């Protein structure tokens, strides 16, 4: 990525309040093409709310969200999906009574354009997008199962596949490894790397710092709806405010050790 590229996403003084509670305050940031931006912060910091705003499910109270220069602040969720933003949810969302394949087909068929009437049957490209997305997350062999019966890791992977089937430019992932085991976290990490390798920009919310620092090109920490840190993952452990309000001394020391180890690992 060169610095002359205009950013893919621009959030300009975005604010969101629920009555008297301000969940996101005057937040401005950008995400460049091909970048992985990590977002952290304590519970209730406004991370999920930020995704709600960007995906149109709960539009901003003020400020603007631009995707490729286009104002999508007040666009509907489906229009934002068509514009190229797909998200996954913190609470594993899925179409429980649909099969795994049908879950992904929803994204492949409806995620690309808002035609008045869809085709009578999925087009070959839609079939291909479905197959590719299932392959990407490794769910091809289980595509006939009913989604509601899947274990938690598979549900999370299925959400990622559904998002990827829409062929997004920007993927928003809300706690993709929350509640997963160490090994499962590694598997999700490999999946995110495969997605990033296809050139998709990713914004990642995660409390699991191991995951967040390993993947993020840049990290932003929110607290009470405001940014308290933005910069490299390595800089997190040197930032007094981040240690005080979010990481704590213990976690911060462990993270510092992890970062030192990571540096010695062959690339």
């Amino acid at each position, binding site marked *: 990525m060169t610095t002359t590229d205009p950013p893919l996403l621009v959030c300009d003084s975005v604010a969101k309040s629920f009555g008297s509670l301000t969940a996101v305050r005057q937040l401005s940031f950008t995400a460049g093409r091909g970048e992985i931006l990590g977002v952290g912060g304590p519970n209730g910091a406004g991370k999920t709310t930020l995704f709600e705003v960007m*995906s*149109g*499910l709960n539009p901003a109270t003020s400020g603007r969200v631009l995707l490729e220069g286009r104002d999508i602040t007040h666009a*509907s*969720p*489906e229009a*934002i*999906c*068509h514009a190229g933003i*797909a*998200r996954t*949810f913190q609470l594993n*969302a*899925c*179409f*429980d*009574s*649909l099969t795994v394949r*049908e879950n992904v*087909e*929803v*994204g492949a*068929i*409806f*995620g*690309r354009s*808002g035609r*008045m*009437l*869809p*085709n*009578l*049957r*999925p087009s070959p490209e839609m079939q291909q997008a479905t197959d590719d997305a299932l392959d990407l997350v490794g769910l091809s062999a289980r595509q006939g199962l009913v989604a509601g019966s899947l274990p938690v890791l598979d549900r999370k992977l299925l959400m990622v596949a*559904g*998002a990827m089937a*829409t062929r997004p430019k920007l993927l928003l992932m809300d706690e993709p490894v929350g509640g997963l085991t160490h090994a499962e976290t590694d598997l999700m990490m490999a999946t995110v790397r495969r997605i990033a390798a296809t050139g998709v920009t990713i914004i990642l919310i995660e409390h699991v710092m191991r995951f967040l620092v390993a993947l993020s090109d840049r990290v932003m920490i929110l607290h009470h709806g405001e940014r308290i840190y933005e910069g490299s993952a390595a800089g997190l452990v040197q930032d007094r405010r981040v240690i005080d309000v979010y990481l704590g001394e213990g976690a911060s020391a462990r993270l510092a050790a992890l970062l030192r180890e990571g540096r010695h690992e062959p690339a």
Partner: protein
Amino acid sequence: MTPLRRDIAASIALVAAMAVVPLIFDTRYVITQLTVFFIWGIVVTQWNLVLGVAGIFSLAQMALFAVGAYGTAMLAYYGGMAMVPAMVIASLATVGVSLVIGFACLRLKGPYVALLTLAIAQMLYLIVVNDTGCFTNPPSGCLPLLGGVRGFSRFGDLGFRDLLGSKWFVGHYYVGLGLLLVAQVFCAFLIRGPLGLAFRALRDNPGYAMSRGVGRLKYQLWVFGLSAFFTGLAGAFYVAHFGVVGPIVFSVSMLLFLLAMIVVGGMGTVWGPLLGAAVLMIADEGLREVGDWREIGLGLVLAGFVILLPRGLVGLRRR
């Protein structure tokens, strides 16, 4: 064979089998009851699209049926229109009414949709029966614009009396069978295709569906509009078949009877509603002798299925 091909093949096989029935039994009672089964079959397959497939708890189905029925009767009675064009126009009018209802229900959830649609149906019923001023004065006596409590009769037919003489009802049997075939194949296409996928996705998780590009307004209007056409047509055919229509089509027991068909057969499935219609109509034949107990029996069947077999008879097989 894909599920869709299987459904179409099954529909054709079923219709072929039904097509020989009049050649074997020509008892008027049997043929007429089967014709009524075709009418209710169409109504429940279409209602199932809204209720089971899209998961929108609309109870306006019989009001839509009534729009098709009354529309046809009024066009024929007042306008002297031939049956077939009157039926088509009335069915299109049903689509229009249904789109308005679908739009009104858009922001409502679950039980509120049921309440609003029931209120709309009741309102239409009250408009019809409370309309007592004479609009015309035919020899049979004062007739309000909407037919009042008496309804409409004497307005032309499909022409089978001229064609088949005393066997005219066999003509109606085949028309009903043909309409049911078209309605059922249409449902299978819809349920198995991308539109059905959109309806089911919105039913399972509206927020998630919207963020995957499925527009709620658009698909809610599609399901209301599409299912209304054949519902209106079933109402229109009911009028053509019986030659009368009255406010009984709005009755709650009728609505419950049809709802029970869907629940017993299996909501949201391709074949459940027809299976349920067959089972309940046969059961109803059996309960004819017991009079008032019929409604109680129906209520018990409905409650029993909701509690014990929420996925209906079709759901039994899949377990």
